[in-house]
Each structure stands twice: as structure tokens, then as C-alpha cells.
């Protein structure tokens, strides 16, 4: 493992290395990536209706600032950043706001969304601006603050799944320094090829994004983590990064799910272990960004193009033509499927995301967000049915768990409604990767049991907090009387 640069060895050249660290556990799902792996990214025409959710990222939903009847232009801010962990939402196309209403999101919750009619004529008096939406910046001369501000105003959040606001991640708190910038190109989810295609087709944009992030974070070593099952992506990245100066390595990771999990990625690439919560990757000197986010940052700075669209893999055995599509965020799933020439056979399950961590959705009237990496339509024979058999104590989940907790104990505790016992078994450490349920021969919904325990614990903590706040305010009210 080479140490981060300290300024002296800037002439060091890029290397491709094999990962030296392997975490225990993990599983090998059927990847089924061949369905869309070789499909070049296609741009989809703007659909006639977009439903843009105010909750496209981790943290507080954006505050909607438009109302029905307004005409918005492409790139216009329609949702304002609402709190520290939040990002703004921009209109991904010009159109008339038909309604602002609560819509079901892929993750199951409802959030306010702006319904746009993109076919509406431009009303008189409204000027659709020409040229770039934001002023393009020269990253070499721009200040760190300007670049950070650009990432924030472009509405960029982690595009790997969780959607953590990038401007927060790229701005470590005082006293903490980033030593390693890790670009996550593992894409360990089955079926999904969006990041893979980006690495093959836009390796030079990834490099630009990396250079910009390195400028924001200060001098740091760069690690680009790619799973070994993407040799063409590794070759493209090698070519693009060949002449990049500094401590740069492409780390080839063994094919193992969940290699793309932030904590496991950090361990696999640099051998550092993020301590127990509330520690964050920055506490071990690491910042991890997804390749999609890296490209978005490059576009936001160099082209002045905010994050309005993303690559989404539409795949599964029920889709007529699996594709990797660039679609404006807010595109309805039904439009994505129509662009893939519809379905071959009636799907029995529709998943937003990959098969390991994605969300099953009840219908196609749901829209993409900045974090929609894939849409999978599976036929009946690909759908796995859970049953409620008893745990046979085989220990497969314990061996599969990449967080080294005991999912069997947790699932049995939750089944017996003993949330406290589940908490003692460290259920809050669970990353919900699904390796336990995947491995379980009794077909138990172990991951869902963990979710249930986590929800109850979070609800309890929230209730306790509310109680404490109420007690404090009551005490304050009493105080003046005395």
C-alpha cells in the first residue's frame, strides 16, 4: 500500500493494482449483467410528462417553490435546499407545472412532487434561456469555495443509491483531512450496468471529475475501485488516467457482493476500517464518490450543466430490449419501459434499483430520481417467494453477513417481538445489503426483520428525543414563574 502523496512524489504515475484486502462474508448472486452490459448509453427524448420529486436525496426533502400554473424552464430551481443535509431540485425540462402533489416514491414513502407538462407551449413573456444553465468554470483557476458552491447549486448528491449530498461529503469538517479519494466503480448489484457503461464510455469525464474533487479536497491519493468482472472498464480507465500525476491507482476488486458498500470498499481498496457509528469514512481519511457522481461534478463545473439527468439501466428478462438510458430525472417508469420497446412478457415484479437492495414497486406510475440506477422487470420464474419457515440455525447468514453481525439471532428476536435483544445483537450496524436473506435456506425475510427492528429503534429514539425536548421546554416555562 503506497502512502498518500506529501507533495514530493507528484511525478508518480498511475498504477493498476489488485486489491490486497478481502472482507469476510459476502455472497455471489447471479449477476445477469450480460443483458445490458454491451448496450451503449442512449439518450431518451424528453417525455411529455415529468414527475419531479422533492425527495431525491438523503436528508430533508427540498422545499417546493413553484405552484400549479407556473411555467418553469430547464434547470430552474423548483425545490430549495432545506437544511444542512439537503440539496436543491431543478426542473429537468421546461414545462408547465400541472400540479404539486404527494406522489409515491420508489422507496415506499410519499413526498411532494412537481408534475410537469413538457408539451405545453411557452407562455408569452417567458424567456427560455439559451446556452449553459450555470456559468462554466475553469476548474484549474477557480477557487475551492467556488467549486464547492457549484457542486451544491448543481444539486449533486451521491448517485450510487443513498443520495448523500456531495457538497457536504466533499467539505470535511475542520480538523479532518481527506487522504484518499475513492471513486466507487464496483457496481456489485446484479443486472445494473449504468456505472459500467459510464466507465467504458466516459472515462475521460470521470478523470476530470476526479481532478476537480481532488482540487476541492486538497492534495490526496486517488483510488478508483472497479470489480474484476469489468475488464473493458478497467482498460478504458487505464487509458484515461494514464498521464494523471500524483498517487493514483486503479484497484481491481474481487467480484463479491457487497463490494460497493462504502465501508467495504474503503477496506478493500486501502485496508482501513471505518469504526463503529457515529464514525464516518472521513474519520479514517477517506471520501468515497460514485462514478456517476464524479461525471456529474465534471459536467457541473466544466459545462455548467446541473444534475438533471442520469444513466439508468432498464433490464430484466421481461423487458423487450434491455438498455442503458440517459433520462431526465422525473421520467416515469412506464416511459422508460416504452423506450425499451415495452415488455416481452408480463412482469411479475418490478424493481427500482438492483435485485439485492432495490425496491419493489406496485406500478409503473413512479418516476426516476437522481439515485435511480436501474429499473428491473422480472418474469414470474425469476421472482423469489419468501416463506415463513423456522430458522434451522445453519449459520449461512452469519457467514454471509459482511458486517459480521448475527442475522439469525436478530431475526429470531424480532420474530419474538424482542427489539431490545435485536439491539443488543447490533442490528443498528446492519447495512441492509440482503446477503443474509440471499443465503437463507429457510427463505426467511431476515433483512426485513432487521429493517423492522431498525425502524422500531429509530422510532423509539425519536420519541425519547421528543419527550426530552418537551420536558425541557416545560421546565423552561416553569422557570420564570419561580
Amino acid at each position: 500500500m503506497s502512502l498518500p502523496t506529501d507533495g514530493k512524489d507528484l511525478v508518480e504515475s498511475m498504477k493498476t493494482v489488485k486489491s490486497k484486502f478481502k472482507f469476510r462474508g459476502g455472497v455471489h448472486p447471479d449477476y445477469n449483467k450480460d443483458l445490458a452490459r454491451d448496450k451503449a448509453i442512449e439518450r431518451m427524448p424528453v417525455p411529455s410528462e415529468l414527475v419531479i420529486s422533492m425527495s431525491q436525496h438523503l436528508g430533508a426533502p427540498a422545499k417546493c417553490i413553484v405552484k400549479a400554473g407556473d411555467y418553469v424552464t430547464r434547470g430552474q430551481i423548483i425545490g430549495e435546499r432545506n437544511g444542512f443535509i439537503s440539496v436543491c431540485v431543478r426542473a429537468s425540462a421546461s414545462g408547465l407545472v400541472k400540479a404539486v402533489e404527494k406522489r409515491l416514491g420508489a422507496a415506499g414513502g410519499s413526498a411532494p412532487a412537481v408534475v410537469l407538462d413538457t408539451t405545453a407551449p411557452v407562455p408569452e413573456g417567458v424567456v427560455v434561456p439559451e446556452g449553459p444553465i450555470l456559468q462554466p468554470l475553469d476548474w484549474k483557476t477557480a477557487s475551492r469555495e467556488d467549486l464547492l458552491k457549484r457542486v451544491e447549486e448543481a444539486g449533486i448528491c451521491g448517485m450510487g443509491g443513498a443520495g448523500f449530498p456531495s457538497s457536504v461529503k466533499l467539505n470535511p469538517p475542520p480538523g479532518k483531512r481527506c487522504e484518499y479519494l475513492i471513486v466507487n466503480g464496483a457496481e456489485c448489484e446484479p443486472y445494473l450496468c449504468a456505472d459500467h457503461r459510464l466507465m467504458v464510455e466516459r472515462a475521460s469525464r470521470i478523470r476530470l471529475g476526479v481532478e476537480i474533487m481532488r482540487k476541492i479536497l486538497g492534495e490526496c491519493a486517488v483510488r478508483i475501485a472497479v470489480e474484476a468482472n469489468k475488464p473493458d472498464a478497467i482498460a478504458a480507465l487505464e487509458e484515461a488516467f494514464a498521464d494523471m500525476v500524483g498517487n493514483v491507482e486503479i484497484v481491481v476488486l474481487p467480484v463479491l457482493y457487497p463490494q460497493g458498500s462504502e465501508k467495504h470498499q474503503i477496506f478493500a481498496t486501502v485496508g482501513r476500517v471505518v469504526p463503529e457509528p457515529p464514525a464516518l469514512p472521513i474519520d479514517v481519511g477517506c471520501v468515497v464518490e460514485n462514478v456517476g457522481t464524479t461525471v456529474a461534478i465534471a459536467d457541473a463545473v466544466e459545462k455548467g450543466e446541473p444534475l438533471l439527468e442520469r444513466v439508468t439501466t432498464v433490464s430484466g428478462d421481461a423487458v423487450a430490449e434491455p438498455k442503458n438510458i440517459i433520462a431526465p430525472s422525473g421520467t416515469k417508469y412506464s416511459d422508460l419501459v416504452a423506450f425499451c420497446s415495452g415488455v416481452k412478457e408480463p412482469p411479475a415484479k418490478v424493481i427500482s434499483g438492483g435485485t439485492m437492495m432495490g425496491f419493489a414497486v406496485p406500478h409503473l406510475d413512479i418516476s426516476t430520481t437522481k439515485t435511480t440506477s436501474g429499473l428491473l422487470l422480472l418474469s414470474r420464474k425469476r421472482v423469489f417467494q419468501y416463506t415463513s419457515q423456522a430458522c434451522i440455525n445453519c449459520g449461512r447468514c452469519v457467514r454471509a453477513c459482511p458486517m459480521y453481525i448475527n442475522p439469525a439471532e436478530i431475526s429470531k428476536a424480532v420474530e419474538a417481538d424482542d427489539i431490545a435483544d435485536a439491539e443488543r445483537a447490533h442490528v443498528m450496524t446492519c447495512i441492509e445489503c440482503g446477503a443474509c436473506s440471499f443465503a437463507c435456506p429457510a427463505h426467511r425475510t431476515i433483512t426485513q426483520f432487521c429493517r423492522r427492528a431498525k425502524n422500531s429503534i429509530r422510532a423509539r429514539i425519536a420519541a425519547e428525543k421528543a419527550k426530552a425536548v418537551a420536558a425541557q421546554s416545560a421546565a423552561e416555562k416553569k422557570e420564570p414563574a419561580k
Partner: protein
Amino acid sequence: MKPKETSEHYVLSSSPHAHSHASVSRIMLDVIIALLPTTIAGVWFFGMPAVWTIAVCVSTCVVTEALCRLAMKRESTIGDFSAILTGPLLALNLPAGLPLWMAVVGSVFAIAVCKQVFGGLGKNPFNPALAARAFMLISFTGPMTIWLKPYWWRAPDAVTTATPLAAMKTMFTSAALSSATPRAGEGGIPSLWDLIIGNMPGCIGEVSAAALALGAVYLFIRKVITWHIPVSYLVTVWVYSLISGGAPAHIHILTGGVMISAFFMATDYATSPTTGKGKLIFGFGCGLLSMLIRQFGSYPEGCSFAILIMNSVCPLINRWTQPKPFGYKRK
């Protein structure tokens, strides 16, 4: 009036939506397949009485399981093959020629008392086959310790005999008296070849080490069991016999129930720890107790009791050996 529903509903479930295709019935089937070589060897050596014992045990176990589930008004669990597996596991731990009604009693005890009373598969604290065997050993001590000679039909003068274990029992004491190491082939100990292929008196399924090893290889290939329990079990027996100075170590491993216990009985999921570390402790405990009973106990063989005792401390071992979450510091 109910509004019209869309005809096709999508399946809604929590992630993950993919599965390894492992199933309980497949695991049980794998163990049954792994038991086939030793079953065949047992039938080869002990003839029709072995066939009858196995057949009676399997059918009684299945019928008992079905009746228990019916009585408890729960869904039938015949389909998970666990009852079908308990049958041969028990039968292979019984001597051939045992009165069949005793095999019936043992099978009913295994399924009804040792398994279903606790809630069925996965919830039983003791290995049903072993608990039933222990129950039978205590209840029918005489018939349970009468052993058919291999190929007994060829030796009409003496059909039954003592097991090598009885001979070894005396070795612990005789070895202490005389420094002469007993060799294979002497004092009731069969030759090494007979030990490996199983040409010796004993329970139906425990005699043939080669057949058991073949089954174990299948279990390892199918990843049904991990190496932890068998290895720590066998190494403990090996080391103990080296230190104690009784019969040679390989004889201890190849006679009696050590092989079948290490690969098939101690590795029973429900009654062994889930973590690797726990499994190592469990195997060590089983091996140590087996040897202690062999040396000091009043029974010549102790594998069943050793595993049952370790079954009872399994929850404790599980508690001690909970894994430390990734990134957590040891407290």
C-alpha cells in the same frame, strides 16, 4: 361495490429480490445422500436386520411427524425432509438385530418428544436421533448392547460379539500397567483394513469409516457442513488418545461412533453453534467428553452422551462467541 383492480399484480417484497436457491429440503436431501454409502456398508455387513431397522425407523419418524403436526394443527413439514433424515440418523446409530418395536419406540421418542414438543425443526435443543439413542440405551440396555458380527450369517455358532470399544476400555487400564502398546489385530481390535472398511461389530452406520468419509466429502462439496466441528472433534480425540496412552489414536477415531458423530451428528444445525469460533469450541467439547467417557465412564462408548451434553451448552457457547461487528473495537 369494489372498484376494478388491475388484473396483474406485481409482487411486493422487501429487498433482496434474489436468492441463492438454497433450501432446507435440499440440505436435508444432501445429508440423506451423504448417508447412503454408510447405509449400504451397514447393510452389506449386517444383512437384512439392518434393512428392517432402517425401514422401520424412517417410516415411524415420518408418520410420527405427520401425526404430531396434525395434532398441533400446524402445517405439515414432511416436505422439508427433516423427519425422513432423522429416521436413518437414528437407525444408523442402533445395532442391527434390535427388536423392531424398540426401534419404533425410539423413533417416536425422537420426533415427538425430542423435536415436535419444542416446536419442530430448528427449535429442538438436543439432536433428536442422539437423544432417542440415549433414551433407548438407558431403557433397553441389554438389546442395545448386543452386537451382530459382520457377515453373521456365515458364522452360525456365534452370531453376536463384543465391539472393539469394550476391548479398548480395558486398554486404558492395561496400558497403564504394562508399557506394551497394543497393536491392531490383537486383543479384539480388528486390523487397520477392517477398521477402515468397517468389518467389525458396532452400530449399523458407524462401522465403515471409509463410507462415512465418502459421505463427508459430499457434504463438504455441497457446503452443507463447514470444517470447524469435524476437525476440532477429530483433532481433540487424536490428541487426547496420544496423551492418555490408551489404544492408538487412529483406533480411537476409526472405532465406535467418532466418525459418524464428527461428520453427521455433531454438525446438526439446530443443536450446534452458528459461529466458526463456537463450532470449534463445540467440536473440542464433544471430542473431550467422548474420550473422557471412553476412559472413565461406565459405558464403553461416549460419543452420543458427549454430543448431548455439548448440545445443552450450545446456547451458552453461542452467547460467548457472538461475532464482533465490522469496525467495532473489542470491549
